[in-house]
């Protein structure tokens, strides 16, 4: 056993090989002066968020899983958060930072309501567009402090003239907008499918709610097939002029697995 302080609490050399201290600060036997770091890494994480605009509003979805590395640690984590009657934010990435942002939005909502319900007095309520602008500035500020909030999120809802609104914001402070959007794995797997339904703004103005919901459900299925950090229970929200319709315990339907029976071996084998 190594009794020197540097060796305390470290793996035994005879089991794990010599410890490589090169990255340690010089005071601890390292070869480099370690810079002070503030950036962290996400620990408990949510995967993709998907959303698509249709003629009257937006449909958004995310599954209910919070992973701990590859461990499916928490299976009841609702990642779609409603903000007033006009917007829903879908969060991917670190769950603790999602909770921080949720509380931040909650305090914003409390302040929003100080004015009461009379629009004439308090001005119009915050739209999804306002909310996205606010969130993206929070995200950019934090990345500029080298202390990012480790999330990628979609803001779905209605803009100030009650037209469908959908935009993206992430840990770098990056923002963009499109008739359909997806974060994380979804950007690779779901976005191509959604773009078939809404190749451009004009197409999204033609899309019905049913088509939009159907498209999102199809994408959630593909993501469950191919994203190793996903689960088949998800939340889905529809935001339109009537308000927010949020369902948080939906099960994936119409999965296709039976073809596994036709698969034999990995090449020439047939039995």
């Amino acid at each position, binding site marked *: 056993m190594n009794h020197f302080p540097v060796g305390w609490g470290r793996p035994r050399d005879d089991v794990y090989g010599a410890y490589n201290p090169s990255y340690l600060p010089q005071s601890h036997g390292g070869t480099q002066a370690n810079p002070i770091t503030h950036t962290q890494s996400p620990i408990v994480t949510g995967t993709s968020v998907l959303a698509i605009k249709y003629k009257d509003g937006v449909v958004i979805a995310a599954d209910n899983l*919070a992973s701990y590395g590859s461990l499916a640690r*928490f299976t*009841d*984590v*609702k990642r779609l958060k409603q903000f007033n009657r006009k917007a829903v934010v879908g969060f991917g990435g670190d*769950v603790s930072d999602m*909770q*921080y942002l*949720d*509380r931040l939005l*909650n*305090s914003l909502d*409390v302040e929003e*309501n*100080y004015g*009461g*319900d*009379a629009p004439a*007095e308090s001005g119009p309520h915050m739209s999804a567009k306002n909310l996205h602008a606010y969130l993206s500035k929070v995200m950019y500020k934090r990345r500029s402090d080298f202390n990012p909030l480790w999330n990628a999120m979609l803001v779905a809802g209605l803009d100030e003239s009650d037209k469908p609104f959908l935009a993206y914001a992430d840990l770098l402070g990056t923002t963009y907008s499109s008739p359909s959007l997806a974060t994380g794995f979804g950007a690779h797997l779901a976005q191509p499918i959604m773009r078939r339904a809404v190749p451009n703004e004009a197409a999204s103005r033609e899309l019905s709610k049913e088509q939009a919901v159907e498209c999102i459900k199809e994408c959630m299925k593909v993501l469950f097939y191919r994203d190793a950090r996903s689960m088949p229970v998800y939340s889905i929200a529809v935001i339109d002029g009537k308000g927010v319709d949020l369902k948080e315990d939906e099960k994936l339907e119409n999965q296709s697995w039976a073809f596994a029976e036709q698969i034999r071996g990995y090449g020439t084998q047939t039995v």
Partner: protein
Amino acid sequence: MTSIGTGYDLSNSVFSPDGRNFQVEYATKAVENGGTAIGIRCKDGVVLAMEKLVTSRLMKKDANKRIATVDRNIGVVSAGLVPDGRHFVSRARDEASSWRSTYKAPIPVASLANRMGSYVQAFTLYSSVRPFGITAIVGGFDAETEVDVDGAVGSGPKVGSGGKTQGVKEGGPYLYMIEPSGLYWGYYGAATGKGRQAAKAELEKLNLDPKKGDTISLEEGVKEAARIIYVAHEDSKDKEFELEMTWISAVSGPTKGRHEDVPKELKDEAERLAKKALEGDDEMEE
């Protein structure tokens, strides 16, 4: 007044020989000049009402609200110096928000009243400040339902938590009144401002003490509040006024636990009844 010319009324931090703080008493005078404000703690909620005296015909009707929201479930109305009232509300909002960031839950009405009482009292201690020229009525509803930690995810056991103490009523409507001295008490009905004597006389006639049987409902409370403000206004009839009225119910009630304006239809109805009740009084004298 006996204080005038003695010099004991010039500073907040100086007592008079008979143990009075005249600055605080003068602040109370400022309150007594303000429009009447009342609060009623009903069975299922709280009503706040204010006799907003119209100081100029050039001001927009129904603008310049005098009853403010703190957090989501608490209302504050004050009589006296309007800017002092605004500062009080601003501080109350800060207290509520700081409570939320510490405990990740809404502040109980009692705790807000306690903190605001301490805050107002501090303004009676120093020569560099003057006391608040307001008496504030703080009304709110502590949720009767269970509230989870702000931001928490997950839902616990599907069958709900085990081992709850049964039959205990949680939360409920609360009403406090805070005076310029920092003194505060919890009330069933509270009144302050110019017409407080008449208002208190009316409040005392209502069934508000739960120990003495069934208390009035929130909707009855709204109607009584409107009537009482109209009664309290009788002595300053020459001046025009607007009635401002808000309410807070349980989460299961009409406001869903929030502090809101009384809806227009209900308020109009309450005002109509209030006017009728006053006319009725006149008729009795024929």
